[in-house]
């Protein structure tokens, strides 16, 4: 960096890997970049909101609520009265924290019951809870594979999957996104033990993995399969088990991964599958072994959220109706939504610095959305990520789509 005026020539990737005489020299460059980047638009990240993540949020304490299309509260469960009451009961009974690792004093009967309920819901022999989705992925992957094994993962897989491979020091082979020819080539070129990892719904594009084809290839090449259902568990499939149910491949997947922060509206992650696999991961997933167990009120709330998700299939029905409404409204506006077919809908802008003023204009016009750009997505593929919830009002979604269309037209992104 010469001056803070140069910030557009740089992005977060430029400050991560450097060499030099002093370890902290790069901090000066990063700081000077921030002086330009923050007013340029990066201040839109790490921005607090002043209300719960409901369909309408207040950006400041005194401001008017605006339409929230940014939170991944797909079933609207984080603020459901029954969920809050269940969390309050668990708080009263167990206190705020588990006060220990699950391997020592931190495992409460509450955790055990919830893990059994997750396994029952997923139709697996066992499940293991983690403090976050990130820790579940890095813990499970680093437990399951080692330096002599292969992980073959989709190129668009989440950072936690890449970091799990880094921690495992495994051999990583990336196949082109959702490209089964590329996956086959990678499988053929990976002798020995291998674990294929794909996501259900890809979090930045909203497209889905062709799990039936992935399963067939894994069987053909003797690979184990792990499916990250962070964005698809509890919403996809007839009973909400996830994309594995949608494709009818529940029994063909070896490692079921999911998060508890999205559709269930709490926090945490889980790994589910055979009892022997789960027991092994429990022993060697250091992100779980060396972390405090999930907070009791969170687990209390999550148990109720899972009960609601199971007994109210109308929530999923409403979610998919809302997705159809929003897709239709956005397409009618001429908005490019990429290859999305899910509740995650990208609004393609493809202008890496031009997206920031659009975000500000949207907020002023009453729509809260986060700009997503490199390195979260490829360069010149910047976008807003719309997350649809069952709790959204279809009429508000239609208005939101119109506001988005107007903002994109004003910025020259669409005609």
């Amino acid at each position, binding site marked *: 960096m010469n001056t803070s005026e140069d910030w557009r020539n740089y992005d977060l990737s430029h400050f991560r890997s450097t*060499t*030099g005489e002093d370890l902290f*020299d790069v901090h000066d460059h990063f700081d000077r970049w921030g002086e330009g980047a923050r007013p340029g638009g990066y201040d839109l990240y790490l921005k607090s909101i002043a209300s719960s993540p409901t369909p309408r949020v207040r950006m400041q304490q005194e401001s008017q609520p605006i339409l929230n299309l940014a939170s991944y509260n797909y079933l609207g469960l984080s603020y459901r009265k029954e969920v809050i009451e269940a969390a309050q009961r668990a708080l009263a009974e167990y206190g705020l924290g588990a006060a220990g690792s699950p391997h020592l004093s931190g495992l409460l009967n509450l955790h055990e019951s919830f893990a059994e309920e997750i396994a029952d819901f997923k139709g697996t022999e066992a499940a293991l809870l983690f403090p976050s989705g990130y820790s579940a992925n890095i813990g499970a992957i680093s437990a399951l594979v080692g330096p002599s094994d292969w992980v073959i993962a989709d190129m668009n897989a989440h950072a936690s999957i890449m970091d799990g491979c880094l921690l495992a020091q*495994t*051999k990583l082979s*990336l196949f082109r996104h959702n490209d089964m020819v590329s996956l086959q080539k990678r499988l053929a070129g990976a002798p020995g033990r291998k674990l294929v990892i794909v996501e259900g719904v890809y979090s930045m594009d909203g497209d889905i993995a062709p799990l039936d084809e992935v399963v067939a290839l894994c069987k053909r090449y003797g690979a184990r399969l792990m499916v990250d259902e962070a964005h698809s568990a509890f919403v996809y499939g007839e009973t909400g088990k996830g994309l594995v149910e949608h494709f009818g491949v529940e029994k063909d997947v070896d490692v079921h991964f999911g998060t508890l922060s999205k559709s269930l509206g709490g926090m945490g992650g889980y790994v589910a599958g055979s009892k022997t696999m789960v027991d092994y991961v429990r022993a060697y997933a250091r992100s779980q072994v060396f972390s405090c167990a999930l907070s009791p009120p969170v687990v209390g709330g999550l148990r109720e959220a899972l009960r609601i998700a199971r007994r109210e299939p109308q929530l999923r029905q409403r979610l998919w109706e809302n997705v159809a409404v929003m897709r239709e409204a956005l397409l009618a506006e001429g908005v490019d939504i990429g290859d999305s077919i899910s509740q995650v809908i990208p609004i393609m802008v493809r202008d890496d610095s031009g997206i920031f003023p659009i975000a500000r204009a949207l907020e002023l016009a009453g729509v809260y959305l986060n700009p997503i750009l490199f390195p979260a997505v490829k*360069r010149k593929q910047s976008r807003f990520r719309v997350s649809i919830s069952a709790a959204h009002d279809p009429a508000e979604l239609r208005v939101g789509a119109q506001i988005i269309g107007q903002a994109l037209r004003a910025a020259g992104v669409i005609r």
Partner: protein
Amino acid sequence: MTRYGFREALGAFFHADTNTLRRWLPAGLSPLEAQPGHALIAVTAFDFTESEVGAYGELVISVLVPPFATRGSPLPHAATFPVVLATTTASSRAHASERWLLPEHERCLDIEFRRDGQQRSVHVHDRGELVLTLSVKRSAGVPSDRLYQVFSARDGQLHRVNLHILGDLDEHQDETGRLQLYAHPITSRIESALLDDRPIVEQSIESGEQQFSDLVSHKWEQS
């Protein structure tokens, strides 16, 4: 300051095996990884129209490495260690080797730039036989001035030079480009490291200039 004017430049970054690239680097440098085990090779070609040694074409294959960052100096946009440098004239090869201590390919190659709509490509031949072709897609460019850092090594000593590349730049990650390799000593080396022939970054620069600062010995202790 040494200046080289060019009509056109094409470049692309490819995933390559980190362990293989590490063996190509001198002590003190390590490959920059995009993902675990996935480092980056850059294949670039320049159509120089003005230089101290006249007009010539150039093909450079480099390993991307972390840039050397110092407080108070501009942060390089990227840093590279060239492992192959081939040109179309003997004088330009000698110049690159003497001035910048860059590797020198044993003989001249033919480097031809072609345009077909949005498609830009470079075709490299050695005595009439194809060595490689690189194609990238070009859309509208924007005026750009980027600082790069180029490392070189000779006689156990590391050197580095700051290089500004100016021009009308189009850079994207549309995965539309392609690198095709044919049997040749240059390509066999790339092939041993390349993990995918589809570039993860494509660059096209028109009407540009390279501005080299002075070469300096890299004082950082070699491990």
